[in-house]
């Protein structure tokens, strides 16, 4: 290969390209990805920065490397931004997409939903449901995950624990949460209270451990 004129101490072009290919292969293999992700849509940098601050603020322990009895499990911290579904005024659908492989055994250590809420008056009740498979929320096909009395008025980010969600919550490819804000018939609906614009996109922060079914750790 032609020598690289710009950097005499750099390894020759061929070696450089070989090492870069090795690096790509090594990263994809260790992250268990078939190919590099092609982003479906860009995430606003402000939203990324805010979510990372929440991830750190959550007393996040460093996702462990391979140590002791955790040898068989890999720790991940995941931030997932919701696509909002405003079909019905009385409730707000939040759709999350996950990319875990079906056969992975996932243990949720912590999961929190972050919403930017504008609460016009005190003592509104926010209910959170997990929709059934396929996002169906009609009738009884949903599970109440929790409800919270919003005692303070005003706007701001609030977090809601999702630990009551079933362990399979992150296992599926796509998950829909449904939020209902109790309104005393004055027509104010949840979509007026939850700011789901791009700059205030609701997001979920989770810490999980994943065990690979065929994961054999070479014991030395």
């Amino acid at each position: 290969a032609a020598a690289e004129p710009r950097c005499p101490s750099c390894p020759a072009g061929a070696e450089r390209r070989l090492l870069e290919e090795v690096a790509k292969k090594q990263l994809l293999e260790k992250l268990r990805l078939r190919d590099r992700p092609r982003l479906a849509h860009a995430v606003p940098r402000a939203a990324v920065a805010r979510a990372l601050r929440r991830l750190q603020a959550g007393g996040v322990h460093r996702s462990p490397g391979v140590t002791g009895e955790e040898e068989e499990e890999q720790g991940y911290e995941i931030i997932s931004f919701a696509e909002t579904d405003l079909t019905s005024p009385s409730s707000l659908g939040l759709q999350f997409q996950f990319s875990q492989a079906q056969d992975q055994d996932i243990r949720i250590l912590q999961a929190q939903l972050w919403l930017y809420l504008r609460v016009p008056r005190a003592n509104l009740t926010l209910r959170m449901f997990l929709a059934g498979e396929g996002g169906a929320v009609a009738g009884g096909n949903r599970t109440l995950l929790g409800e919270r009395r919003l005692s303070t008025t005003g706007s701001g980010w609030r977090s809601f624990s999702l630990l009551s969600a079933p362990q399979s919550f992150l296992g599926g490819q796509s998950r829909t949460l449904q939020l209902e804000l109790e309104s005393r018939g004055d027509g104010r609906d949840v979509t007026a209270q939850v700011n789901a614009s791009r700059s205030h996109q609701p997001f979920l922060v989770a810490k999980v451990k994943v065990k690979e079914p065929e994961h054999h750790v070479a014991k030395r």
Partner: protein
Amino acid sequence: SLRCSQNSNLCCRKDYYVDFRDIGWNDWIIKPEGYQINYCMGQCPLHVAGSPGMASSFHTAVFNLVKANNVQASGHSCCVPTRRRPLSILYFDRNSNIVKTDIPDMIVDACGCS
């Protein structure tokens, strides 16, 4: 453990930094900007079998075996990683979720002769 230099062909650690911008992966890998893809290379003549990077007692044990059994160059010792560390990485997955994890044993820190 030795770092490779021009005038030695003994077992050593060769450093190489891959910048994710150079491979066009900085759009989905948020942090770090790149990583050290170091590797081990070089000769492992018998008198250094089991040397740097391993416990010196291991080297002594191997050396005594070589002397006691008058081992010729039938077998040979290899230049291998003897200490590695994890790489912490933050990246977007295909659904634009942000994932943070530590990849164990990703960066070669030291090389030695088996």
